[in-house]
């Protein structure tokens, strides 16, 4: 990104220097343009996804709320599960459910996001990754808003929510978004060539959700398999969220550094794959 601005954009003689894309327009102009494009795509995502539908923004909240209701019914009324560490089942699950749904939806929407921009990609030159960024960012932004709203409601009903825990929860969401963006870039690029990706992704994400301690506490898992469940990186982030928001733990540890490195590695790796494949998108979309 921080390449030096070209000093002599116009080659003095023909044939010119062997560079593609051309040195012009200058880096700064490109950055301004890309920012404007991202804003355009992002607002479009938010608009068409929620504001365009009849119930508007409420959908972003209704879907997780409905899921929460179902889990509450199944786990507390039918299975009578316990061990939620002082807080109610609803609070315990809500803290983890929203980030999971944000990540899941971001992956699913990000993976297929290029298809709806096919007309543009075939005929206009722009960085294709902006489409995926906008899709993922819109999903995370909307679900984070819903998350805060739900926490406020839970606190109003007397649940022990530690709002200072947001100091940790927000960075955790950011880490999740970075990792999710990387994975979405990876799957989106593959999806252009191999249409099965989106169909494989859905059941995979559902399985992963139940393997993650979202609707159950890690302590409820049998000792023998507990290390495997605990090794799930998303499970680690869920644990951090619960510790921060439900117990008020604000300290950082070495695990957080590892999580940061993993998230950045996923992003860089996903972007590398995306950039390798994106010049060929035009022919396959």
């Amino acid at each position, binding site marked *: 990104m921080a390449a030096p601005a070209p000093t002599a954009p116009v080659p003095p003689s023909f044939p010119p220097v062997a560079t593609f894309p051309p040195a012009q327009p200058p880096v700064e102009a490109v950055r301004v343009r890309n920012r404007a494009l991202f804003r355009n795509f992002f607002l479009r995502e938010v608009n068409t996804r929620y504001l365009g539908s009849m119930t508007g923004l409420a959908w972003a909240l209704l879907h997780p709320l409905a899921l929460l209701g179902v889990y509450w019914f199944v786990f507390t009324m039918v299975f009578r599960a316990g061990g939620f560490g002082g807080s109610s089942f609803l609070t315990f699950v809500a803290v983890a459910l929203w980030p999971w749904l944000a990540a899941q939806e971001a992956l699913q929407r990000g993976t297929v996001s290029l298809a709806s921009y096919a007309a543009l990609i075939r005929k206009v030159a722009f960085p294709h990754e902006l489409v995926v960024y906008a899709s993922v960012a819109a999903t995370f932004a909307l679900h984070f808003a819903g998350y805060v709203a739900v926490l406020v409601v839970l606190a109003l009903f007397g649940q022990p929510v530690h709002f200072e825990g947001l100091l940790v929860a927000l960075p955790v969401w950011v880490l999740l978004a970075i990792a999710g963006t990387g994975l979405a870039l990876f799957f989106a690029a593959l999806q252009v060539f191999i249409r099965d990706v989106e169909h494989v992704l859905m059941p995979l994400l559902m399985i992963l959700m139940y393997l993650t301690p979202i609707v159950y506490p890690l302590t409820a898992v049998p000792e023998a398999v507990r290390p495997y469940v605990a090794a799930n990186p998303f499970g680690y982030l869920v644990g951090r969220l619960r510790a921060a928001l439900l117990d008020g733990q604000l300290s950082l540890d070495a695990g957080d550094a590892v999580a940061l490195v993993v998230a950045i590695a996923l992003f860089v790796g996903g972007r590398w794959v995306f950039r*390798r494949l994106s010049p060929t998108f035009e022919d396959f979309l």
Partner: protein
Amino acid sequence: MGPLLALENVGKDYARVDARGGRVRLVWDLLRGRSAASVFTAFDGVSLRLERGQSLAIIGENGAGKSTLLKVIAGVIKPTRGTLVVNGRVGALLELGSGFHPDYSGLANIELAAALLGLTPAEIADRREQIVAFADIGEHIREPIKHYSSGMVVRLGFAVATALTPDILITDEVLAVGDESFQKKSIAWMEKYLAGGGTLLFVSHSMYHVQKLCRHALWLERGRMRLYGDADHVAREYVAWHEARAEAAANTAKAAPPASAYVVTGLALTIDGGGSEIDPGHGFRVDVEVRSPDDREPVLAVGVVRADGTPVYGTTSEIDRAAPVRLGPMRYAFSIRFDDLSLLPGHYRLRAHAMDPEGMRLFDTHEAPFVIAGTTRELGYVRLPHAWPHAETTPKTTAAEPRAAAPER
């Protein structure tokens, strides 16, 4: 200042993928930084330069790689080989959609297009009015593009591409679309743009527009540069090549019928009572011999045309259920009589076509000229039987020549 645009030995390959496994392989190859195993070369070895104010036309047949070349210049796709330098703002109007998002409204697409070109919000606001006015599609501007007619999409696309005053305007057969009044408007805009020093890069099949709008032309043939230079010269060579090719194609079709074809091997026209001209009211007999490669009974089509080729009448042995006589292996003879001809005097030709036994495919054509004797002031090709019932006296024959009045009863 250097050229607006310079290409040096630019080429573009497309990956060829057949089976599903091929796609996985392609992804793997791309990730390793290799080129695809099997490629199709859209064009190669293209070198050109475009100076400010010197418009360039790209001509060639369909599939010659013109549109792909435009896409490379517009930056939509990267070239596989060669170097490409663009020194200026490129406005591309590629095909119909012009890079619109089908779900966005017209207004939203204007915003998007402006953002794609890197305009600031203030600049966008300035030009929005101008674009809407030029496109002139009324309230549709608030509806999603996917509900537009192709004409409306082109209007909006042209309005957007032009309002942003590009240094190079790339258009791909855009002038061919849109209604009459919009075409007039766009041509007027184009002339103003060119007079103001604008540079046009366009693909067209209309040599008239190529010569009118462009200084230079590039002729692409199967992805290679066939000719590059002065627009008049290139256009003339291109047209000449087309004509020569059309003629050659017509000749080869005539010259060598394949061995499997049904062929007319003999055609004889015998006039009643001998002589070289046919008197009105008389007739002639036609004998045709046809070779049938598979020894099945062929069908013969026979027709009469005027000297200039205008058809007068035709029939086939299949319509009339007239079987030929088998003369020997693969040899069939047809005989047909035309009596009491009502053709007006003049020059005619008899045509005989050999057809397959199903009467579906027409293989071979032979002709024999003949003349109907006499003169007349009547019009047309054929005398239809007629009368004037309210005429007081028997009308004198209108024909100046007594001989021409024969077929009255």
